[in-house]
């Protein structure tokens, strides 16, 4: 595909802006750049077609199965897109007077209430822009709390299981915590003895997903949170896997003190090829005074007022957050309501278990138990017997129009493929994907080379990652 810079003719431009109707200001030469930037010079037709060409080389949720474990690639309802584009939402300046943004404040107020109901938290900020940003925010809540108790200099350690998302330790490091990695038990859950050995007077907190990254609900969760609390630490819930348990069980009832959610996973907002997401952070009442971002209250007369939490630790982003993402999530919650929210989670778990039950006939499960919304295959044996790796199998899926599962994660499973079908896939789709997996296993034993060579039918074939990293070409060079 040609780059946009290689299209069109030099000197070509669109007629977008009018002539200046006031005297033109001439700024002094010393403030001016030496030459104009090289930007595309295309007609609107060429421009429009360029991006149509690019779009054709992308597999989105709308193009087929997308079982990317931990990412909850559910269908993105169109009504949510429609309402997020309403001029009353898109045309509002973030620094308008409260009286002129009552609708936006009500959106923030309503969704805070709904998300607190779903998670069992008491307060929530919509300011963080993504999951990792939420982690940073949640850890700063913990840090602020410890500072207020005069314990921040002593309680410096954040405990993270070795199965955790990489963002967990990275976020803790950004907050100047020391990371204590604890090994998982053979069942993929928290090793209680390892946890007991790790906690102490220097513990700031624990970061955990539940269900965890191997797709299992940790049945010892109450004991886990109690061990941390007894040691004086706080418990942080990574909401990446909330889609398994919405309306079934609440992190607040599991003993967690603060959480982040991923509206772009659990609450159906689209991921935009990498973002924008939204990573709201909820907490129990004792942490609420430290929350950053816009806090919305409702007056007796029903008006909405914006403000800041009493002892807020600062801001994590300019303005109130990725507001249009929040609008989409609110539309989703209104649509599902109290019946639909648990129904979504239960069917996500059903779909995952169905796929797991069918695939374990041909593949090894990393953990042979009922899973939650996702499960992990280990292709260790297949790899040893055929030379076909998890990567090879993933590339085979590409030729069959299927987005591969998350590969090589969690790190504690060899040759891992982590499959999260989500609740929005019909059985017919699951069956066709199961059939593709079964066929690929046959290919692995009969003609492994075919999978080493895959993919054959994608816009490009396997790309040279090593060359990309060793001799980086990170921009187009104009001649």
């Amino acid at each position, binding site marked *: 595909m040609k780059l946009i810079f290689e299209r069109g003719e030099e000197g070509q431009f669109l007629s977008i802006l009018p002539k200046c109707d006031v005297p033109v200001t001439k700024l002094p030469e010393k403030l001016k750049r030496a030459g104009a930037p090289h930007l595309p010079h295309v007609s609107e037709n060429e421009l429009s077609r360029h991006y149509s060409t690019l779009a054709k080389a992308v597999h989105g949720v709308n193009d087929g199965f997308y079982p990317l474990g931990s990412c909850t690639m559910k269908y993105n309802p169109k009504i949510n897109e429609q309402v997020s584009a309403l001029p009353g939402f898109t045309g509002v300046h973030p620094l308008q007077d409260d009286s002129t943004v009552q609708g936006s404040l009500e959106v923030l107020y309503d969704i805070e209430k709904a998300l607190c109901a779903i998670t069992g938290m008491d307060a929530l900020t919509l300011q963080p822009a993504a999951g990792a940003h939420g982690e940073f925010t949640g850890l700063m809540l913990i840090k602020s709390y410890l500072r207020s108790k005069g314990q921040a200099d002593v309680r410096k350690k954040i405990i993270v299981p070795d199965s955790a998302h990489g963002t967990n330790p990275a976020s803790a490091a950004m907050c100047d915590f020391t990371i204590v990695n604890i090994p998982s038990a053979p069942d993929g859950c928290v090793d209680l003895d390892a946890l007991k050995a790790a906690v102490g007077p220097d513990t700031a907190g624990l970061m955990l997903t539940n269900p965890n990254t191997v797709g299992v609900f940790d049945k010892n969760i109450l004991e886990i949170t109690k061990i941390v609390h007894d040691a004086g630490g706080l418990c942080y819930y990574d909401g990446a896997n909330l889609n398994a348990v919405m309306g079934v069980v609440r992190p607040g*009832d599991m003993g967690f003190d603060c959480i982040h959610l991923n509206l772009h996973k659990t609450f159906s907002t689209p991921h935009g090829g990498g973002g924008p997401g939204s990573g709201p952070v909820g907490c129990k009442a004792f942490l609420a005074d430290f929350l950053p971002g816009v806090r919305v209250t409702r007056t007796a007369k029903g008006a909405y007022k914006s403000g800041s939490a009493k002892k807020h630790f600062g801001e994590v982003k300019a303005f109130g957050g990725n507001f249009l993402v929040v609008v989409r999530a609110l539309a989703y919650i209104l649509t599902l309501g109290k019946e639909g929210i648990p129904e979504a989670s239960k069917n996500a778990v059903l779909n995952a278990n169905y796929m797991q039950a069918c695939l374990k006939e041909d593949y090894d499960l990393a953990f042979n138990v009922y899973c939650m919304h996702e499960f992990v295959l280990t292709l260790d044996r297949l790899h040893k017997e055929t030379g076909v790796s998890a990567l090879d199998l993933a590339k085979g899926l590409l030729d069959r129009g299927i987005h591969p599962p998350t590969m090589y994660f969690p790190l504690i499973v060899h040759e891992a493929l982590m499959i999260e079908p989500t609740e929005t896939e019909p059985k017919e789709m699951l069956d066709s994907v199961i059939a593709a997996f079964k066929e690929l296993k046959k290919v692995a034993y009969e003609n492994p080379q075919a999978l080493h060579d895959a993919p054959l039918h994608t816009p490009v074939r396997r790309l040279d990652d090593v060359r990309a990293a060793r001799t980086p070409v990170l*921009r187009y060079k104009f001649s």
Partner: protein
Amino acid sequence: MGSYVPSSAAEREEMLKKIGVKSIDDLFAAVPRKMLVKSLDLPSGKSELEVSAIMTALSEKNKVYKTILRGAGAYDHYIPAVVGSVLSKEQFVTAYTPYQAEISQGILQNIFEYQTMICELTGMDVSNASVYDGATAMAEAVPMCKERKKTKAYISATVNPAYLEVVRTYCSASDTDLTVIPAKNGKTDVKALEKALSDDAACFILQQPNFFGLFEDAEKIGAVVHAAGAKYVMSVNPISMGFCKTPAEYGADVAVGEGQPLGMPLAFGGPYLGFMACKEAMQRKLPGRIVGQTVDVDGKTGYVLTLQAREQHIRREKASSNICSNQALCALCAAVYLSAMGAKGLSEAATLSTSKAHYLAKELCKIEGVDLVYKGEFFNEFVTTLPETGKVLKALDKAGILGGLPVDGGVLWCCTEKQTKEELDRAVAIVKEVLL
């Protein structure tokens, strides 16, 4: 109503049978019984028509101004029609981060093109694929500049105060010492900066044009910063890059900024776009995704996420940042905007915005009691004194005009190419009427 679950009751039964359980609830056996939610405290689900009506009613409770004379970090620029058209393509909207390069070339190539455009705007060598917004871009620049013996950060008091708040938070998190250099007459006090910078200074952050719209003496400041052995971080308005001197020309090591003016609506503050670019020598310290060009097994050109050894999923606690999701669709928006505008259109947007701001300033200052608070060249924002600020803003509001933002010492006004002379004259007439 509805949960977008497509399977029928009969299909669910079939699936349960295959799994070997009687009901879905059996799959939740690991959850301690006493913890199960009995009833969720939410209203019942609603039909699409009802949801549409509710959300529309909410949106109509907001006031959308026809004329917006307020900026301060969020700018009301014209968005070409083609931008919305490209951005609504479902492949771009619904895809995840391009982990599987073979079926994500469209997104990867766009990021490569976006990176190129950001490098062209700023004059820098390397750009990342985006961060959350201009404020977090500024905050993420600090750890890039820190070294073992270079640990302290410095920032001008003339940056957007909302950005300063975020930089403060990030520095407080990492226990980084942050010094705010005071302003003098609306600009960075260069003498104070020179005095303050110590041997262990990691970086100094400047915004150009600054929060008050003024052009800083960025060349001289760059020399002072580099003389102290620190890195120079500059935040710029991307529209100003249509004709203004680039961070590279001022000697900056890192360029950051808010990309919202490049085709993104005001949207009550987000989603926006943080851009970050740097000199080649610092590319391995740049946070976030970066796309690189390479070839496939057949020798065909293609694009991949690269230099991933910096990132959290590989380096975990040793990563350059925790960022994972970014603002990819907003980066696409900026790329389409810049493609539609071209260098000529961008320069026009910059010229029109500056000219209208200068016209508005001149006309406002003809009114008694209204004066420019700061002398000096400005871009598309300026601060005036304004007696009866509350009254004036109210009168403007009545006429569908969002007036400038009250700040210390006056009101911060802003213009873009969108306001016509007629609109500006009308605003001035209203101010005049109130102050008569």
